[in-house]
Structures are given as structure tokens and as C-alpha cells.
């Protein structure tokens, strides 16, 4: 490889033998043990350094008192968990509405031909607007604007507006996920369905959507995780959910530990879902590899 600037000479690398060959297979158990050891040691070192820096920081004593106060934690935790019930209701109701509304939007956008231009146009504008406007603003505008109209019979409780706002915001994202799934199904599938006499809607319902939805379950779960966290945004319009509750406790006790408790609740709920998403992704990858043979 003395020729500078010339094409990369790979003959020397190839002579070593392909990776995963007999040499490597024989050494595998010892390699695995060593990899685990390296991982453990490097993790302990990295986190050890981080902890050491934190507890030796000049302000650590005050931070410890105001963020990691065991008494405050024990007292605040039941209220915080109770308030989380509202978040669960929020995202459970909103998620169902999102899955339906987003699917309708995605189907609108995938309809071909000039007849359906208005529907495609509406769905496109919708996705553009609700992805452009920050979620907090949508929540504010709906939560204060609609009750502000003073229409008779309209609810004054902020909860329904919170659900509607989250649904509107997330449907824009989720419809794009669905659309990607629909477009990933090969056109020959629709041709096969139509050639058997199925209508366009039947082809969509029985052939295209089942394949599309299956493929996008991992990204859908990902958006679901985002929705769980974004339920705290509705505290801005006066819904006393987990974040607002922790704020109330914090202000009553002049201590930030309730925020740590809230963070802990979200971690406990979100991590299982994140792992489930990972499992589904890797299962899909294995399946794809198996069917490609």
C-alpha cells in the first residue's frame, strides 16, 4: 500500500480471512466472557467518575437536600402516583382516538386520482399545520380559546380539551407513520387484490392495511411513549395531573424532590414499553431475514 492516493488495496485485508470464519468460531466462549468483563468494567468506571464529580461538586450539599430528600419523597409519593391516574386516562383515551383519526388521515392521503384531491389536500394541510405548531400552543389555544367562546353547553372542565389537543397534535405524526407503512406495501399486492375483483376499499381493508399496520407497530409504540410524556403539557391549562401535582407539592415544601418522584414514575412506565418496542423491532428483523433466506 505504498501508492499514495491510489485505490485502496484490500488484498492484504482479505488475506487475513473472512470475519466469522473458523478462527473466530473456536475462540467464541472466551471472547464472550472478555466482552462482558470489558462492558462491566467500563460501565463501573464511567458511572463512578460521574458520581464522584457530582458528589464532590461545591453545591452538592444543597442539591442533595432539595432534590433527594427522603422525607419529602415519602410524603409526596402517594399524591403523585394518585395524580398519575389522570395522565393514564389522558393517554389511554387520546391514544385510541389518535390511532383512529391518524388512520383516516393516512388513508385520505393515499387515495389516488383527481377525485380525491380535496381529501388528500386536507389531510396534507392537517399534517403540516399540526406538526408545525408547538404542542403547548395547541393546548393553550384549545384549552383557553374554546371555553372562551362562551358557547352554551360547552364544557368548562379542561380535561376534554386536553384530550382533544393531544389527539390533534399526535394524529399528525402518527398519520405519517401509517402513511409510510401503506407506501411500503408493494403495488403488486394491490394489483393482485384488484385482479380478484376486490374494490379499492376492500383491497385497502383486507390486503394493504393489515400488512402496513404490522410493519409500523414499533414506530407507533415509539410515538405512544412520546404521548405518555407529553400528557404533562396539559398542566398548562389547569389539569391537575402528575406534573401539576408535583409542582403544588414543591411549592408547599420548597423542595424539588417531588419532581424526582415524578421522573421516577415516568421511567417506571416508559422503560417496559421501550423494551417491548425493541423486542418487536428485532423480531421483525429476524422475520425479514428468515423470509429473504
Amino acid at each position, binding site marked *: 500500500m505504498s501508492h499514495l492516493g491510489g485505490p485502496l488495496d484490500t488484498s492484504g485485508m482479505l488475506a487475513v480471512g473472512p470475519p466469522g470464519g473458523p478462527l473466530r468460531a473456536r475462540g467464541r466462549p472466551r471472547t464472550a466472557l472478555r466482552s462482558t468483563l470489558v462492558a462491566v468494567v467500563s460501565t463501573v468506571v464511567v458511572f463512578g467518575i460521574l458520581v464522584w464529580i457530582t458528589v464532590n461538586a461545591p453545591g452538592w450539599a444543597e442539591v442533595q437536600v432539595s432534590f433527594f430528600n427522603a422525607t419529602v419523597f415519602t410524603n409526596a409519593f402517594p399524591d403523585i402516583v394518585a395524580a398519575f391516574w389522570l395522565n393514564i386516562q389522558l393517554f389511554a383515551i387520546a391514544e385510541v382516538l389518535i390511532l383512529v383519526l391518524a388512520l383516516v388521515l393516512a388513508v385520505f392521503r393515499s387515495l389516488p386520482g383527481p377525485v380525491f384531491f380535496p381529501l388528500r389536500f386536507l389531510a396534507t394541510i392537517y399534517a403540516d399545520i399540526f406538526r408545525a405548531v408547538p404542542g403547548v400552543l395547541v393546548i393553550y389555544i384549545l384549552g383557553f380559546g374554546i371555553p372562551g367562546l362562551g358557547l352554551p353547553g360547552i364544557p368548562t372542565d379542561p380535561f376534554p380539551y386536553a384530550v382533544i389537543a393531544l389527539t390533534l397534535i399526535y394524529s399528525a405524526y402518527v398519520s405519517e407513520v401509517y402513511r409510510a407503512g401503506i407506501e411500503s406495501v408493494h403495488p403488486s399486492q394491490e*394489483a*393482485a387484490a384488484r*385482479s*380478484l*375483483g376486490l374494490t379499492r376499499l376492500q383491497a385497502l381493508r383486507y390486503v394493504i392495511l393489515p*400488512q402496513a399496520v404490522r410493519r409500523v407497530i414499533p414506530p407507533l409504540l415509539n410515538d405512544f411513549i412520546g404521548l405518555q410524556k407529553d400528557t404533562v403539557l396539559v398542566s398548562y391549562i389547569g389539569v391537575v395531573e402528575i406534573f401539576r401535582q408535583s409542582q403544588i407539592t414543591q411549592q408547599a415544601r420548597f423542595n424539588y424532590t417531588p419532581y424526582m418522584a415524578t421522573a421516577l414514575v415516568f421511567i417506571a412506565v416508559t422503560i417496559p414499553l421501550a423494551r417491548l418496542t425493541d423486542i418487536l423491532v428485532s423480531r421483525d428483523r429476524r422475520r425479514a431475514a428468515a423470509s429473504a433466506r
Partner: protein
Amino acid sequence: MAPTATAPALAVEGVHKSFGQTPVLRGIDLTVAQHEVVCLIGASGSGKSTLLRCVNLLEPIDAGRIVVAGEDICAPGVDVNRVRRRIGIVFQAFNLFPHMSVLDNVTLAPRKVLHLAPAEAAARALALLERFGLADRQREFPDRLSGGQQQRVAIVRALAMDPQLLLLDEVTSALDPELVAEVLAVIRELARGGMTMLIATHEMGFARDIANRVCFLDAGRILEDGPPEQMFRAPRAERTQRFLQRVMEAGRL
């Protein structure tokens, strides 16, 4: 116009089709009588597949008429879904529905289009699967089947709609050589049963055996057609001779 029993199964009259600026079909005239088997041969890109897709209304034509059992299926206002019920098509790449079992693949259209009761649709599908040696595969998903089995399921799926005309679009081109025979055997069996078929194929030996008539397509036109003996022994057109010469050199005849 009402369909009549005496009309040919298919009449293609002066059909033109372009993709953008590229003409693919340049005036096709072709008649397929009831119970007749017609093979379309010709180089890749000569328009065989496009012609089949046009007959099944998967591609709109630019000019001409396509008449199926006496009914002009390109006339405005024709219900394409009703037309397709009577015309089956089998694709080169099988196009089975990967999320459904073999049985569901076969019964979907009878249930949703013909509105058969699930039990009746299943019974009819099983009879067909049995006839083509696939009954023990009814619960499998397509990715668990060999290419030959998948293509046989695709043929059964088309047959389940009880079509008056079956279009076969190079159905063995995506198969490993050792799997071709089982699929061709199915088509032979259909021909014996009197199924009207229009077959685009590269299998010249098969075309010679099975066809009542062979059409040679060249650059979007039917250059020559006739009974297989004449087409393969004494083709008249120079281009047909050259095409068959090349096929012979490749050992495919």
C-alpha cells in the same frame, strides 16, 4: 351489450398503449375462442405482460377495444370489479398475500366479492387445493412454501373465482428450474379441463405442447400467429425466425 355464449372469450381490437412517450402496444388484434389456449411469445419488452394487464384492466388502454364474451370492457361506465371477477390473472411473482394463510388467500375474494358463506368458500377452496395437491398446505403462510407451491396457490386463488378466462403472465419465470414442471403440469391439467387461457411464456416447449395457437409479439405488434407446429417448424417472418433461433441457441426449445 349482453354477454353471449357464442361470442369469442376474448377479442382485442386495435389496442394501443403507451407508457409516457414509449409506445408498448401498437395496434394489437387478437381473438381467443372459448376453450382455446393461446400462447404469447416474444422477447422481454415486446408487450406480452402489458397486453395481459390491459385485458384485466390493471392498465388503461389508449385506443382500441377489448371485448370479453361479447361485452366491451373498456366502454365508459363499465364496472371494473365486475369484469375482473370473470377474468383471472396469475403473476410472475405470485403476489400472494403474505399475512394470510393459503386457505385465506384462496377464500378472500369468494367471501368478499362473491359473498359466499365462509364455510362454503372454504369447502370450495379445499376442493381446489386438493385437486392440485396442496390440501396439506392450507394452514401454512406463503413464506413457508416453495416457489412452485406458491405459484400453484396463486393459480388456485385465481380459479376460486371461477373465471371464464385465465391470464398467465410468465408464471414460471421466477421459479428455480426444478420447480417449473409442477406449475406447468397444473396448467396442462387446466387446458385438458377446457379452461380458456391466454399465456405469456418463455417456455417454448411448453407453448408447443399446450397451445392451440401461438402469437409472436415484436415491438408491440403481433407479427405472426398460427398453430404451434407451423410457428415453431416453419415461421414465416424473418424476425420470428431470428427470435426462435436465439431461443434454440439458449437451449430453451
